[in-house]
């Protein structure tokens, strides 16, 4: 392999990893705090994309630059409204009951959202590429890249990673979340409203999934079923990293993104296999994931 291919593969891998990280980190965060495997996470990704495209197409008539804030507005809207409703009315009643209930409920939400999506946005692919078109292309070794994909997406992913780290480690709200994660009973005993923490965390996680979708929306066709693929990949990333591991999700997304890009250059037949191959290999050696830690049972 020559150095040209290596450079191109790194760039391709970075932009892909950025999107994968944004979606999987939300899944990881929710699991880390609420201990819920949210099967509907992919639907939040899809709704983020569709909502961003809908708002974007509307505001583009005023100014195409408004499509950038539209991406953020859509993510927060989906995360707060849908995520909030899900947590408050569907998940809260089943905390502390068999885990299979949470799986069934989030799976049901996934099915309902998938059908609603078709009712709202139809089945024809939707495309809203203004944000990509507004930013210039950059040429690397004679190959054009959109700066949206190789600069903006990795920057947003990095900012999200650093922002989340800072939020959880250096703010009071973050400390409260960590306290509830560590020991819900003790946290409640010192006056922390665990229910509120769960609600806010779920909204943040849901917003991150929606942000992934919103940021992907200018580069891809929005089609029925788009959330399904993303949920499978996000699970692979989250499981490989160790469920609940935020930095782990970033490293794993990067590893999967780069490995996938290199394999497309070297042996494209294995493209689909790569993320899952990495997952299997990692879990064989470290069943708790790359960054997961085994916990001592309390009782």
């Amino acid at each position, binding site marked *: 392999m020559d150095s*040209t*291919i290596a450079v*191109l*593969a790194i*760039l*391709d*891998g970075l*932009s*892909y990893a950025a*999107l994968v990280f944004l979606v999987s980190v939300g899944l990881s965060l929710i699991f880390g705090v609420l201990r819920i495997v949210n099967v509907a996470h992919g639907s939040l990704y899809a709704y983020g994309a569709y909502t961003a495209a809908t708002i974007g197409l509307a505001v583009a008539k005023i100014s195409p630059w408004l499509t950038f804030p539209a991406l953020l507005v859509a993510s927060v809207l989906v995360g707060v409204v849908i995520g909030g409703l899900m947590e408050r009315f569907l998940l809260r009643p089943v905390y502390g009951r068999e885990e299979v209930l949470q799986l069934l409920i989030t799976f049901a939400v996934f099915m309902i959202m998938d*059908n609603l999506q*078709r009712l709202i946005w*139809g*089945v*024809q*692919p939707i*495309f809203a*590429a203004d944000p*990509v*078109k507004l930013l210039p*292309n950059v040429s690397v*070794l*004679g*190959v*054009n*890249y*959109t700066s949206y*994909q190789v600069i903006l997406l990795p920057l947003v992913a990095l900012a999200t990673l650093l922002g989340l780290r800072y939020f959880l480690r250096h703010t009071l709200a973050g400390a409260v979340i960590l306290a509830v994660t560590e020991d819900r009973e003790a946290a409640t005993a010192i006056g922390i409203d665990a229910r509120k923490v769960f609600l806010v965390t779920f909204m943040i996680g849901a917003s991150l999934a929606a942000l992934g979708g919103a940021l*992907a929306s200018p*580069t*891809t*066709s*929005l*089609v*029925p*079923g*788009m959330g399904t*693929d*993303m949920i499978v990949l996000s699970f692979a990333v989250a499981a490989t990293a160790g469920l609940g591991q935020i930095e782990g999700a970033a490293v794993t997304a990067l590893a999967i993104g780069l490995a*996938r*890009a290199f394999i*497309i*250059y070297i042996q*494209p*037949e294995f*493209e*689909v296999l790569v993320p899952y191959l990495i997952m299997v290999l990692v879990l064989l050696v470290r069943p708790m994931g790359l960054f997961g830690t085994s916990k001592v049972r309390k009782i």
Partner: protein
Amino acid sequence: MTLFKTLLGAAALATTILAGPVAAQDKPKELKIGIATFLSGPASVFGVPAKAAAEMIAEDINKKGGIGGVPVSLSFIDEGAGGEALVSNYRRLVQDEKVDVTFAAISSGSCVQLAPLAEDLKMMNFMWDCGAASILEARKYRYVFRTQANATPEMLAVLMYLLKTKPDFKTIAVVNQDYAWGRESWEIFSTALKQMKPDVKVVAELFPKFGAPDFSTEISRLMALKPDVVLTTSWGGDLDTLVRQAGQRGLLQQTSFVLGIGETSIQRLGKDLPEGIIVGARGDHWFLHPEMKNDAGFKAFNEAFKAKTGSYPIYSVYHMQQAFSALQGAYDKALKAQGGKWPSREQVIDAMAGLEFKGWGRPVTMRGEDNQGLEAQLVGVTKAAPGYDFKVLDNMMLFEPKRITNPAGTKSVDWLKTLPADFYKAVVPTFKHGG
């Protein structure tokens, strides 16, 4: 009155007994058609417009008095359910709803499942959109028909167009979806290419995952490889994404793109599809079909469809029309053979052999030996045209089906390997847009 009824009943019974088991029957109250189409999943880009078309066509048939005086009624099942659910829904259509004919299906995977089942149930089934040639090559069916071409002529026409219009290309790359159609269409195309232009080098064979949201890496690789031609037989959101991402990064301008079945994406891609892209249509399907564009019925159908759905018809819509036309043609022929009496299913099946019917393109002939439809192929190149906010097709070639469809009893790939190098040089009529 009671005596009259008894006599009438006895007469009817006697007629039935005397006429034997395949005798003409009483006209039913309605002719029930069960249709398998994608109502969910990515392939609903074909399935949902086709359902809208089926409803329009059925309404039109009923307005005109039905088929042989019998109104048609429709039941739909969702191919998106897939697997066992699709099979059990199909059984329900046949055994519980007692449909008279089924149109199934879009996906070759569905057809592979449903064709043998239809045969077992003795249910007349039209494979109204699926393309895998192997289905009718592997087994002789009595009850299963394909009312359009298969993948072999569809791909061969696209290759011949490419060789006729860009004869000097030296390198080619393929980016197809990683599933049966993506693989099979490339096998057909590349096998024929080896026969007709063996010096062409295949520089990359890329099969990204079906439904992939991002082709950035594939595009980078193609931009580095700089092939003369890039072929893709992808469709739906995958094709739209590939074309748009390639356009954003200048790949469409750097290399010649061939969209094997791109006709369905033209309207959606709008201005993002540049000029000079070769586009196939899985049949002679184009809402500005050069031989049909002045036909009043064709124009009215297209406009009514646009009014109903917001877009002009795509090939799956025209394939649906062909299934209805075949059904109408078969019943008309069987009715005539029975002197106007309502035919049995077996008699309608018999009428299918050699039947010629016309949808919204050139006439299609049902080949009696293997129940394969012989359908013309239209391939063109994109061009901007006043009055449309998307590209139209120009320099359209219409390929005769008999020449480019593998003969009955042969396997597609085996037949392709026998083609002479100058096969593509056959004279084919060319039509300008608006000409």
